[in-house]
Each structure stands twice: as structure tokens, then as C-alpha cells.
């Protein structure tokens, strides 16, 4: 008897994530790669890699939903939903409502509130500016000539931090240059950058109930969670793989909508 599977592809502005789940909603395999400039190619590659990791060659019977910025570029998806819905669905796999989901993505941040039944009460995306998103940290890492993967350790080890006041990425860059000129330690600057991300999140919305943090920025920079804890009294939790919550949510929706599903 063949297993019934479902897939989700989250084509984000920075990375493309792919997930395959079994009929119980358990993750069997996943893959993450840079989206680059060819969203269709990235989603094809991510999907092939995920199939390979699960040991499945035929995709005919797998229902796939797409989500994310490039959700309409996934030619093999049978339907698409926004990342707002899919992140919520993914988080509900791990945590019961009510909750406030904070997703820090490559180009945008999202705050999604779910009620006790897991139904969405409200959502907010950051405004047009990418301040406080992954793009901000990427830009600053570039200015500081630092590999992205070193940021979290540097922020964590810092015994102090610089204060960055602007909510404009470009102006923050100027502030960082001023701090360098005035001799601030590199790890203090990085911690100041992390705090800037947290401040951008805090000004977006209020936080109610348990806070669930997701997204690639959290996956690779978990120290942000520690910093957020210094500002709000809520419990803050994170799922095992916060970066793939959108793809997981899409896969779970696909599982529900699968035309082969006779449950």
C-alpha cells in the first residue's frame, strides 16, 4: 500500500523551503535553498531534493500547495495560500492557540494572532521598509564584512551594546559607521543590530498569550529570542525548525485538500 503524502513549498524572497508530510502531518523531509532570481527553478530544485530525501520518485499522487512571496511561480502546485495562513497552520502543529506568532523573514516581518481555536484574529506585516527583517541584518553584515553565520555568536558573547535609534536601514548603516569611527567593539555593534530588530518587532503590535517565533532569521539567530524576552513577559517558544513553518503549513493545507484524501 502506498503512503499518502502532501507537500508544501514556501518561496520566500530570500530562501525557498520545501516540506513533505505523511498523512499524519509528520514531517518526512525538507529542504532549504536560496531563492535567487529564478523562483520557478528554486522551487523545482527544492522539491526534487525533498522528494529524494524522502525516497520518493513519483510525484503524481502528492498534492502540493505553495506559499510565500513567489507562491504563484510554483508550476506544480495545485493551489496557493499566503504565508500568513501557512505560518499559522504550521505553528498550530506544535502549539495550541491562543498565540501571537512573530515571523521574521528575509524581506518582511509578520505578527499573526490566533485565538483559542486556532482561528486568526488579526495579522500585520511590516510596512514597505525592510527595517528589522533579515535583509537588514544581511545589509549590516555586509557593511561590517562579517559572515552572516557569525552574527548570533557575536551578539550573544557581547557584554554591552551600542544603541541604534533609527528605524531606517540606511540611516542605521550610517549610525553603525559612526559607532565604528568612535571605536565601539564589533560584538557591541552586532548586539545593537539585534536589538534594533527586536525594537522593530515590538513597535508593530501588542503581544498576547504565548509568543511563537518563526522564520529563517530566528532559525539562524536564536539569540533574538533572548533579547525579546527582556522586553515582554510572555512565554516565548519556537518550533523545532522555525524556518520551514510556512512550507509545513502549506503541506498541511495540501493534506487537508488532497483530492486523494478520502478521510
Amino acid at each position, binding site marked *: 500500500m502506498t503512503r499518502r503524502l502532501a507537500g508544501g513549498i514556501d518561496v520566500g524572497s530570500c530562501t525557498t523551503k520545501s516540506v513533505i508530510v505523511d498523512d499524519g502531518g509528520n514531517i518526512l523531509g525538507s529542504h532549504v535553498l536560496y531563492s535567487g532570481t529564478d523562483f520557478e527553478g528554486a522551487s523545482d530544485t527544492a522539491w526534487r531534493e525533498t522528494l529524494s530525501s524522502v525516497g520518493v520518485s513519483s510525484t503524481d499522487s502528492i498534492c502540493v500547495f*505553495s506559499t510565500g*512571496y513567489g507562491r504563484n511561480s510554483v508550476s506544480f502546485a495545485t493551489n*496557493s495560500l*499566503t504565508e500568513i*495562513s501557512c505560518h499559522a497552520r504550521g505553528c498550530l502543529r506544535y502549539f495550541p492557540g491562543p498565540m501571537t506568532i512573530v515571523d521574521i523573514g528575509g524581506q518582511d516581518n509578520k505578527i499573526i494572532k490566533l485565538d483559542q481555536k486556532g482561528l*486568526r484574529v*488579526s495579522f500585520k*506585516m511590516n510596512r*514597505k521598509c525592510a527595517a528589522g527583517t533579515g535583509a537588514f541584518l544581511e545589509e549590516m553584515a555586509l557593511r561590517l564584512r562579517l559572515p552572516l553565520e557569525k552574527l548570533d555568536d557575536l551578539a550573544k558573547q557581547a557584554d554591552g551594546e551600542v544603541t541604534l535609534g533609527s528605524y531606517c536601514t540606511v540611516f542605521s548603516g550610517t549610525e553603525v559607521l559612526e559607532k565604528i569611527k568612535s571605536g565601539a567593539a564589533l560584538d557591541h555593534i552586532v548586539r545593537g543590530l539585534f536589538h534594533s530588530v527586536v525594537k522593530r518587532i515590538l513597535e508593530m503590535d501588542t503581544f498576547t498569550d504565548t509568543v511563537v517565533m518563526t522564520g529563517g532569521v530566528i532559525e539562524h539567530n536564536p539569540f533574538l529570542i533572548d533579547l525579546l524576552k527582556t522586553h515582554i513577559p510572555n512565554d516565548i517558544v519556537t518550533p523545532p525548525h522555525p524556518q520551514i513553518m510556512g512550507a509545513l503549513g502549506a503541506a498541511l493545507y495540501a493534506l487537508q485538500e488532497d483530492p486523494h484524501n478520502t478521510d
Partner: protein
Amino acid sequence: MSDRQKQSRRQIAATSQMKKLMVAHFLEIDEARKTGKQKVAWCTSVGPAELLHAMGFLVYYPENHGALLGATRMATDVIPLANAVGYSPDICSYLTADVGAYLKGVTPLTKAYGIQNIPKADILVYNTNQCRDVQDWFSFYAREWDVPIVGIHTHRNIREVEDFHIADLVSQMKSMIPTLEQVSGNRFDIDRLREVLDLSLQCTKLWRRVLECGAAKPAPLTFFDATIHMAPAVILRGKPEAIEYYKLLIAELEDRIKTKEGAVPGERHRLYWDGMPVWGKLRELSDQFCQLRTNVVASTYCNSWIFDAFDPKEPFESMARAYTELFIVRDESFKEWYMDNWIENFSIDGVIFHDAKTCPNNSNNRYSMPQRMAKRLGLPTLVLHGDLNDLRCYSEEQTRTNIEAFVEQLDQKDG
């Protein structure tokens, strides 16, 4: 891929007649400028147009021109010219688009009506009930052409309209008359004003009926239709042709109501739009809502040209009242009461607030109204960040995703 079908809203047949009226209106003004046979007054869209008609002026509305610049997507190209001479990107983008177009020597009237230039004003008459920017906007042209400028300064943040508000505005309007007489060469005639006001009253009553058709399920028109069909209420009120046009339009809409022919096929959700339209994205937004089988059935913006208080028996007092009762000059408590009524009467499922970067007066989300409304009415609200004209302030993908996610939220509510 999404299973949503590509579709657009049903077109309104009366539109072709409205276009003829617009052509006639603009050609009449252009002809008057060329021959000098009639004086042209520029007027803000929310009055005091009736007084100008009564004084024998042809009336031109720069805000309509600003919207045309936006709808034709010329605005974002010409706004930087105004920015460069000192008009900030943060002020009204009707103003910056209009001034930028003037500086560049272009106008959408050329392509639409074959008119080479906007009509030079003999006098500029503003009312600050929309915002203070109109005064600065008109002042640019007053300096440019060395022509007189007069205006009414409306009170703001009004809870209840009081007698002193009315008395003040009446006094301001009357004080303009000597200048208007001098420029027009005509004596003020109160009976003529009564006649014009009666025509405006008939027009505004019909415009209200047009908008109230949106309460039907399914709604026979959308907010996007209303932003187009409000043109006669804005620029032809006080003239008989606006009245005839709305009778024609209402007949078509009422026919649709009888046959249950919705503007959005398969209407599932009904939304309220607060704030300015995004003029350069009307088609895209309309199509997206249509594909989501969601209709924006009511708005604050299009209601701005309902002037219930007009009364030919008391022309000055009723104009003062009509221009002071407006939503835009009222305080938050009145605005919330007003919107709650429309939301209830139109069976609204959710409210979209457009936060227009350059139009603070028409962006009602900025003092926590969406949060209060969501709590009070139990309705989901969404804030879209954009602008009426300056598409540099507009993110296509963010807007699309926000709208799509909002409709997904409404779907979830439906189970």
C-alpha cells in the same frame, strides 16, 4: 497554482454617457479659456462650487485633475518635479502631481479630451475642509498667474456642528462675494444661488441613492465603480446634466438589484474601504477583489459628496452646514459612529483602512481606529500602506499579499 479564476467586475453601461458629459464639460471650459467669453474659477471639490456657479463662473476642479494624473499613472513621473522645487514628498500628492505636471507642461486632459493645457484660472477658491494643502496648492497658481485667491477655513475635529461653526462659515462665504463680483463682472443674485443649490441638492440625493444601491446583496456596483461614477457629483453638481445622469445610472443599478446581478460575480465577502483610492491601481485592486469574489461595497471617500443639508431656502446656512457636517472634518467619535452605521447597513464583513502616505486627513487608521473598531464591532480590519497618487509609496506585492491574507481570514470565519 491558485485555483482563483481571472475575472473582472461587470461593467456599467451608463459609463459611456458619463464620458460624453465629461468631454462636454472640459471642452466647454477649454473653449471659454480660448475665447474669453466666460470666466473660469478653480474650486476645491467640496465647495463652495454652488456660489461660483451662481456668480456665472465655469468651475474647474484641480482635485479631479490630480486624480486623473493618478489614474493615468502620470503622477509618479511628474511628482519629482514638484519635489525638486521644494514641495515635499510628504505633502498631498494631488498637489505635487498637479504642480509637477504644470512644470513639465503636460496634462492627462490632452489624451482624454484633446486639451493641450489645464485652464488658467481667473480666480482660485478653496475650502480647507479637505486639508490645508489645498490652500498651498492654489497659492502656487495664484503666484504663478497673479490672479486672486480667496478661501474658506473650515473648523476641524468637530463633534457636533454648532451654530457658531455655521455663522463663521456663512460670514466667510459672504465676505468672498465682492471679490467674486469683481472678477466675474456679475452681481451676486441670491435667487440664482437658490436655483443652483436646488440642482446640487437633487444631484446629491441621487448620488446618495447610487451609493446606497451597494447595500443590496449582491451589490450591483463596487467602490471602484463609485470612484469613477462620482465624477458628476464632484464636477457637474449644480448643473442639470448631473441629475439626468444619475437617474440613468440608478435605473441600471436597480435593474441589476432586481435580477440579482452582482458587480462581482459570486460575491462572497463584503468590505468597507476607508481612505483615499489608490488611483494608479484601481484596475489591479478591482481585479484582485473580483478574483477573490469579494466586493468593496461601501466607502467613506465616495460618501464625501453627499450633502444632505443643502436647502435652497437657506442657501448660505445650508452650504455652511453641508460643508461642515462632512466626515473629514469631524472628530474620531463622530467618524466611528458614522462608519458603524454604514457597516451595519451594508452587511460588511471586514474593513480596509488605506493609510495614504501623503494624505493624513483621509487616513483614519492613524489614531488606533482600526483596533477600536475591531474590538467594538468584532470585525476584522486591515491597514494597507500606500498613497493616492505617489506609487513610490506603494508596494504591489505587499498589498496583494495583505488583501489575499485578509480574505483568507474571512474565509476562515465562514468555516
